[in-house]
């Protein structure tokens, strides 16, 4: 695609150390849709940067990029530059740590945080040209690019759970592009279903899914890029 070599419009200095990091931070924010709908905000966020990334994160503005994303900004917004000051004015606690991820992409990060009512974590990597890979959310391993509208559905590990979820999606006439199901906690009998869709779902789908008996919670990740004209 021609669009891979022209654009996107981003805040510099590096598409992988800055722009991709904004996208990882923003993806993490989307996990808290429940808290936001109740009027809560994020309280504390911890960033664990892989060793090669930690060695240069200040000069690349990686810290500002991650925090900007967590605050909901896009990679082209100038607020990225002052995100750390914005976070502190909002009373959001932020901490950066160095962590060695074994056999991993150099630009790998773990983001972990909480609001008043929920806590999540995400592991992902910025793989160049502002592209990202999300590799784990709340104990569920995955490999998604964030370019599809994506549902992260936590459900009880019971027979028929998947068919009810898929049934609700097909009732809304949405096509599934990719889907993974992983058992996350055998003891508690919990699983996570990751669904990448072809089209953006209406809000109704999420409330419909939440009403299903085996469904424990639903997070929706909007696509990080919208085909043409990424800004």
């Amino acid at each position: 695609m021609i669009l891979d070599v022209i654009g996107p419009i981003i805040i510099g200095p590096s598409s992988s150390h800055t722009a991709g990091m904004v996208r990882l931070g923003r993806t993490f924010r989307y996990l808290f849709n429940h808290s936001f709908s109740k009027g809560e905000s994020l309280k504390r966020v911890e960033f664990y940067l892989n060793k090669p990334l930690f060695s240069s994160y200040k000069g690349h503005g990686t810290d500002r990029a991650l925090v900007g994303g967590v605050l909901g900004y896009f990679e082209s917004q100038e607020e990225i530059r002052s995100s750390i000051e914005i976070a502190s004015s909002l009373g959001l606690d932020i901490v950066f740590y160095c962590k060695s991820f074994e056999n991993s992409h150099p630009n790998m990060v773990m983001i972990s945080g909480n609001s008043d009512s929920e806590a999540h974590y995400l592991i992902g990597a910025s793989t160049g040209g502002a592209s990202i890979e999300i590799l784990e959310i709340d104990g569920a391993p995955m490999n998604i690019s964030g370019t599809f509208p994506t549902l992260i559905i936590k459900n009880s590990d019971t027979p028929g759970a998947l068919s009810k979820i898929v049934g609700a999606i097909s009732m809304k006439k949405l096509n599934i592009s990719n889907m993974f199901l992983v058992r996350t906690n055998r003891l508690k009998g919990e699983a996570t279903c990751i669904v990448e869709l072809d089209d953006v779902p209406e809000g109704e789908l999420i409330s419909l899914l939440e009403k299903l008996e085996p469904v424990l919670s639903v997070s929706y990740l909007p696509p990080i890029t919208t085909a043409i004209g990424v800004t």
Partner: protein
Amino acid sequence: MNFKRLIDTALNTSTDLYEVISNWYMLESGTSSKELYAFSERMITSMLKAYKERQKASIPSLTGWTGDIAQNLRNYTPRFLNEQLLYALEVAISMAEHNASMGKIVACPTAGACGVVPGIILSLKRFNGVSVEKLSKALVVAGAVGECIKGKASISGAVAGCQAEIGTATAMASSILVYIASNNNYRALYSAPALALKSLMGLVCDPVGGYVEIPCVKRNAFGVSIAYTAAEMALAGIESLIPFDEVAEAMGKVGRALPESLRETGEGGIAATPTAKKLLNEFIDRSES
């Protein structure tokens, strides 16, 4: 994708190269070519805007190593170059400095090489009166050049060195110049990016501390001058005997042969010099205190 194929299609069907690329894009993406044009136009206006922004405030970079060298060129009367080339160099450095200080830029093809194409675009607009419409079409042609290089080699310094970043930007920029000068000179359109890429073959990616500053910022200006040189040579009828598509492939092979220390790790080349290490240590001390 083969650039020769696109050129041959344009030649054999007497269709403008921009139209051929638009149609190819439409088939590949399933979206209208109008959207492609609108996208390209938005990138052009964003480049113009980014340069204006930079004029208003020259913020130093996070390390403090760059941030104000563009004004040296702005306030200088050239002894040897013409005003147009000097202006293009100044734009390229301004954009690269803007990027290094967390300004809003168009990655083209990457953030580190974001000055080369705007240098050419803005100089064409100011000194040759080229319209935004024509420039938007030329940028699509440059996009196809970049896309071919991406497919056959890489546009990432971490994968193939600076030849893949500044090299690709320079090849793209040279095709913009040729397309604006003569959109049906297919020989020159095929030669210019090959000449440009050959001249930067083997250029390593060796940023001090791994930051997109030294030597990246200044290399953007050299990219501009090579783009002008390649375009003028091609327009003068000098052909690249090695076809562009083969040059792109060779660049990829050279990139893969580069040791890791010369691929954006900040461990070789300029980054490994005593002065570079001293600068880096000083910055680390400053940022920790």
